[in-house]
């Protein structure tokens, strides 16, 4: 059997870094092939070359026995290669059908297209209404838009870049079902992920990249997740340890928190209530866009809420701004690093001053103590292993994972009594993520209360004492995290909500 796509010796270098170094592997027709590796291992550059977005410096590809060198994505699509992007390439203000047609080479008329979207979503169990604005859809539904856009072109190779990072367990099941069906029909799938259990459940073959080079390949079903992790990272990882601590007195208390969103595509918060105790980690799970950003803003003080809804140490702080809350010991780190957690064009030192000036005494009488600020920035860089030439570097120049370590470290080293973080390890590689999780546990162990909002359920189960789910701006009652199963969590996250969507589509069809 000849390979569907044969990649031989592909190399791509950027100034200062070799993203792919002599990478070779082959994908068989109908095979689900995993491309594994940490952040920065070169997975994304690899698929961009296959999809024609980046031209390789050396090496060549063969598609069905023919030389294959796409100069742009439309050439790749014409050859039967389609791609679902990690960061969705969707247009929020346009509707589903418009988004789909933009990704097609020979789009049919809009009327026929709506019918074909309905057909494909029926066949593959991906309910979707062609007339809805993408800005109103959930992350899972947005991904369906991308997948349907690909499927309508009848691809022979489907590339999926980190497809499950924003999905609920139930949505992952639906996706896997779709992918298996496609694979059975003869479509090859190149599946990029660093979630090892998923790869073991889904993939027929795996190629592992580290620092741009192929370091191994395996049949995922025949090896353990730990073995794959070791190949990926190059060393064995230790799971975070938590000291067994008794929960202390309640620190952060939220009740009857209601908020209307500030932006057209925001989510309202509906009657949220919970308590976080000293020495405890409360994990809040949920699919993106269910009110996480709004909840963080209400806790950090960016949005004020009704009197009595947020209190710290029995003091009502719901009408206080961020600085007043920081002064009382509530620090927070939002999800969006560039432009929210950090000012992109300011140096790391300046960014340190922005949130730590009160608790670390970096400003006196309106003047900034630059020496103290720089020392603090250096301390964050050293303790959280931030890879940067120094504190004078602009925040924008750091890679996403490094900046994440910096903003988390900046808040943690302020010795907060309550820490609120949204997506603490988003885009951070496995070993750095492990150290951030360890730091969160250590902080809780020292008597602080920590609230972790995350979409990574494995992460939440690993570090939280209690777990609650956020769904359409409502928070479920927190449950003891030990002993929770994925199925229970999935139901808490609103798997039932999805069934409901499917019915709506059927009713209107």
């Amino acid at each position, binding site marked *: 059997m000849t390979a569907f796509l044969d990649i031989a010796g592909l190399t791509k270098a950027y100034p200062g870094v070799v993203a792919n170094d002599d990478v070779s592997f082959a994908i068989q027709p109908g095979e689900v092939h995993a491309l594994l590796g940490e952040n920065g291992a070169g997975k994304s550059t690899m698929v961009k070359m296959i999809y024609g977005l980046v031209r390789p410096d050396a090496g060549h590809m063969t598609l069905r026995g023919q030389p294959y060198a796409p100069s742009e*994505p439309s050439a790749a699509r014409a050859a039967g290669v389609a791609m679902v992007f990690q960061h969705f390439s969707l247009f*929020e203000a346009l509707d589903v059908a418009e988004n789909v047609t933009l990704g097609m080479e020979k789009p049919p008329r809009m009327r026929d297209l709506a019918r074909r979207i309905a057909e494909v979503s029926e066949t593959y169990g991906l309910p979707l209404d062609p007339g809805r604005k993408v800005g109103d859809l959930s992350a899972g539904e947005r991904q369906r838009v991308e997948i349907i856009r690909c499927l309508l072109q009848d691809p022979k190779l489907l590339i999926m870049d980190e497809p499950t990072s924003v999905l609920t367990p139930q949505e992952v099941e639906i996706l896997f079902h779709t992918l298996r069906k496609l694979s059975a029909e003869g479509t090859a799938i190149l599946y990029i992920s660093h979630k090892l259990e998923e790869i073991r459940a889904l993939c027929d073959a795996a190629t592992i990249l580290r620092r741009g080079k192929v370091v191994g390949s395996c049949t995922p079903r025949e090896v353990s997740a730990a073995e794959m992790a070791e190949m990926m990272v190059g060393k064995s990882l230790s799971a975070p340890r938590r000291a067994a601590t008794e929960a202390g007195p309640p620190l952060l208390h939220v009740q009857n928190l209601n908020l209307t969103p500030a932006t057209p595509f925001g989510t309202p918060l509906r009657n949220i209530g919970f308590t976080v105790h000293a020495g405890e980690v409360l994990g809040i799970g949920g699919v993106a866009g269910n009110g996480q950003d709004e909840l963080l803003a209400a806790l950090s003080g960016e949005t004020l809420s009704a009197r009595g809804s947020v209190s710290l140490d029995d003091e009502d702080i719901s009408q206080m701004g961020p600085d007043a809350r920081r002064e009382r010991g509530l620090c927070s780190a939002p999800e969006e690093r560039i432009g929210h957690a950090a000012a992109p064009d300011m140096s790391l030192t300046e960014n340190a001053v922005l949130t730590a000036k009160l608790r670390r005494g970096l400003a006196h009488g309106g003047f900034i103590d630059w020496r103290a600020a720089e020392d603090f920035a250096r301390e964050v860089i050293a303790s959280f292993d931030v890879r940067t030439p120094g504190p004078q570097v602009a925040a924008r120049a750091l890679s996403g994972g490094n900046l994440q370590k910096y903003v988390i470290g900046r808040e943690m080293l302020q010795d907060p009594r309550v820490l609120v973080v949204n997506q603490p390890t988003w885009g951070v590689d496995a070993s750095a993520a492990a150290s951030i999780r360890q730091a969160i546990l250590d902080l809780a162990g020292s008597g602080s209360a920590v609230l972790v909002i995350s979409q990574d359920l494995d992460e939440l189960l690993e570090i939280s004492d209690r777990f609650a789910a956020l769904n359409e701006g409502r928070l479920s009652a927190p449950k003891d995290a030990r002993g929770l199963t994925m199925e229970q969590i999935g139901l808490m996250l609103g798997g039932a909500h999805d069934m409901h969507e499917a019915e709506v589509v059927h009713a209107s069809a």
Partner: protein
Amino acid sequence: MFGIDPVTLAAALIAASTPILLAAIGELVVEKSGVLNLGVEGMMIMGAICGFIACVTTGSPWLGFVAGAAGGAALSLIFGVLTQFLLSNQVATGLALTLFGLGMSALMGEDYTGINPPLTPKLFPEALRQLEVVGPILFGHDLIVYLSVALVAAVAWGLARTRTGLIIRAVGENHDAAHSLGYKVIRIRILAILFGGACAGLGGAYLSLVRVPSWTEGMTAGAGWIALAIVVFASWRPWRALIGAYLFGGIAALQLRLQAAQIDIPVALLDASPYIVTIIVLVIISTDRTRAALNAPAALGRVFHASG
């Protein structure tokens, strides 16, 4: 009322609105593609002088209009190259373009003051134009007026219904996503900028060849800025831009007649009235921020840089 004839007023407002309507519909397309070009005033006045020179030299108003459009487009190309290839700031570049256009046109027009250009013929025969009421309003204009309305219809239909329009909107909504799908963001934006420049230039030429008709320095007198305001006023919808342009043109035509009728209002206040109304309307519109944000192209004014 005040001895003002509503029929001639309606006919006059259509003619008075045509330059700003042309400029506004061009800028609307530019902004839909995610580019904010504040140089409309400069492109209009370049169109006015290029059109005037061509018309006087050749004796053909039609060549004048073509030259006006070409002049505006040529100036917009400078903006396009600076902002799209050299990634300069769009606001600063647009302002500079206006200043450059005003200065350059004054230099080019030195020898052309005090000359009257050849008349632009009316489109419809005398008999139609003599009809009561509808004659002056519907049939009393030249080709460019009808062209401007046709252009609004074409842009409205094109943006909403055609693939080209969809791509323009997509690029203005999220240029990174459009790029990753393989659309040529910079090429699309340059073409949109050229279209906007040609429209503004045509509007300017209409001013110097039909509206005034003669050349004076700085004769656009803020029409470009009003066109920019109309795009926001219209919340980026072509037919609303037509309404906006006719509204502002109407106020301009009315204030001239009020002055002629010796109404006891200070002339300066009447002169300023279109601008005051612009400010009031902009304030009213921007009070509802969520609605304005829904219609605005999300990538408006943001620099696009293709990365690996």
